[in-house]
């Protein structure tokens, strides 16, 4: 028998999923070219090659799917990082993982003239992994081990380093600037289905794995000693979790560029809804993160119509007040 609260959680999760689907439909039909649900429906059932149908097929559908996947990935990565580091501000962007992956890609574009999507994916993973490793390593120097403050500073410093170096490269190579500037702001606009398909084989298993691992993460959040006492191989769990973070963070950057704040905002919101049980937090993060990014992307089309704001800027605008709120509340409080 399911308890009442479990039923409620499932209901809310399904509701969230419905909202995500609705938003994705919205993402299909809203935009500069006017379309409606009927046209979108026809585009899939009886494709006739008209402009609207092509837009929906080739532009809006990939965009909606990418938004959902990237949003979900970032939110889950944030949730796991917050659990692992006990730092409420942990997220791929604060820890410099976005900036690191971005830097690697800019190096590849401007110095090695790489332009294959498949290569972007691997380069982004490499950048994310390198940065994550360095930040984690620096953050855990010393007797106290990993402290939230040290980690945040290490992350901020690495982010500052990578963005300076990225800018430096772009100053020297202006044609690369043209190529990557829009990407650097974080955007799901104009992304092709292929770029999603090139990361999906890694990102999808990582999302599933995160749900499988959630019970172990629950144990780990009780503290390393307790977890060990309960017989958990904490090293193994942490390593797997780190791997998930790298794949999700790197994959998102490869597809959509560095999008900030979703990894901070959504896990907190999920925790607010379902408490501290990661078996619930992670699926909630997946659904809500996807919904937030798709929603921000729809908003981004209308704010300065007919132009578009990169969605990374939208999430920053939505996310900063929230970040300030958490920072004011401080570390270590619920």
């Amino acid at each position: 028998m399911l308890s009442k609260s479990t039923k409620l959680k499932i209901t809310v999760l399904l509701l969230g999923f419905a909202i995500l689907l609705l938003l994705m439909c919205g993402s299909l039909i809203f935009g500069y070219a006017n379309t409606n649900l009927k046209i979108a429906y026809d585009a899939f059932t009886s494709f006739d090659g008209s402009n609207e149908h092509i837009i929906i097929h080739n532009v809006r559908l990939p965009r909606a799917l990418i938004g959902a996947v990237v949003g979900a990935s970032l939110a889950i990565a944030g949730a796991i990082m917050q659990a692992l580091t006990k730092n409420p501000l942990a997220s791929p962007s604060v820890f410099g993982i976005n900036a690191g992956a971005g830097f690697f890609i800019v190096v590849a574009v401007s110095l090695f003239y790489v332009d294959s999507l498949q290569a972007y994916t691997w380069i982004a993973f490499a950048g994310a992994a390198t940065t994550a490793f360095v930040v984690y390593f620096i953050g855990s120097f010393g007797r106290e081990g990993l402290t939230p403050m040290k980690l945040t500073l290490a992350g901020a410093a690495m982010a500052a380093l990578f963005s300076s170096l990225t800018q430096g490269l772009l100053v020297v190579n202006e044609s690369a600037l043209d190529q990557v500037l829009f990407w650097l702001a974080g955007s799901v606009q104009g992304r092709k289905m292929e770029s999603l398909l090139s990361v999906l084989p890694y990102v999808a298993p990582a999302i599933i794995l995160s749900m499988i691992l959630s019970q172990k993460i629950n144990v780990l959040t009780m503290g390393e000693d307790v977890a060990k006492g309960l017989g958990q191989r904490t090293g193994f769990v942490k390593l797997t979790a780190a791997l998930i973070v790298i794949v999700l963070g790197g994959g998102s950057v490869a597809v959509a560029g560095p999008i900030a704040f979703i990894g901070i905002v959504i896990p907190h919101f999920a925790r607010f809804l379902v408490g501290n049980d990661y078996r619930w937090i992670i699926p909630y993060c997946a659904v809500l993160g996807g919904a937030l990014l798709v929603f921000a992307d729809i908003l981004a089309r209308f704010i300065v119509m007919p132009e578009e704001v990169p969605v990374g800027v939208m999430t920053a605008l939505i996310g900063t007040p929230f970040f300030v709120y958490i920072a004011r509340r401080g570390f270590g409080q619920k």
Partner: protein
Amino acid sequence: MKKYFKLRIASDKFSFLIDKKTVVTSAVLSAVVLAIFIISTGVGEVIISPLNVVKTLFGFGTEMDNLFIFSFRLPRIIIALLVGICLAVAGAILQGLIRNPLASPDIIGITGGGSVAVVVFFMLFSNKNNALTVSIEWIPVAAFLGATILGLLVYLLSWKNGSSSIRLVLIGIGLSMLTQSLTTLFMIKGPIYQAAQANVWITGTVYAANWEQVRIMLPVVLILLIISMISVRNVNIQELGDELATGVGSAVQKNKLFLLILSTALTGCAVAFAGAIGFVGLMAPHIARRLVGSSFGSLLPVSALIGALLVMVADLIGRTLFSPLEVPAGVFTAAIGAPYFIYLLFKTRNS
């Protein structure tokens, strides 16, 4: 031998304890700064020997040397010097204030505020042909305003029954992320070459500095430096921590605001003339602390000299090593700064 000697002025109205080690260190550093100054003035597309540089500076140069040194190189090097001083002193004050050795104006977003302002400036004041509609000399004002507004915003948002250091850092990091995405947004909105122009500036460079800029910057920097030296005691007290500082009778919150404004103004000044040169505000005070200890009376001048050295050397490397390509000084300060930062985190790991 005593470590200090006393300096009393106006029948004990003012007294200073002067640390001998500081005097020696400062003297040595000043000599190094001077040497780099002369070498840097001499090096470039046309190389002028140090002796001829000195001759020219004293007014006995050939016409060619005069042209190169006075028209092209000198303003640039003076700006580099001043920018280094500003960033280093701003960093030293900020670190004392926040009591975290890893805080610096770039990490808490003050330089980011300047960057946004400059990009917005490019966007607002360009006409259809992408020419600026107002004089480019207003850019420093915009940068200064941007940095100051961001500094105040960080302070205000971190206010909660007083302003705590940790909150200042965290909120600064958050806002600096916001400034980054806003900067990119405005760069995208403009045409690409404008973005390129803004990008050079954001990376931080003293390229194309001129005498007019020196004339504006020099007095401002001097005044801010004098104020900083006078405020030294407050920083020293602030370093004890909020409770203890209150206990010894310091108006903690008032001083905190004042010092933050001072640090912001110094950063704004640097950002205004050279863009967002990173990591100097972090490195210089540290190196200084290792040399002369953490009393601010000694720390400030020594940091200032080291800061000047860092930016001058970064600029020298940037314009010679990859010649004819100009690499912005900010790239080199970041490249030296980040490993240094890691080293610092390692050093302070148990504190």
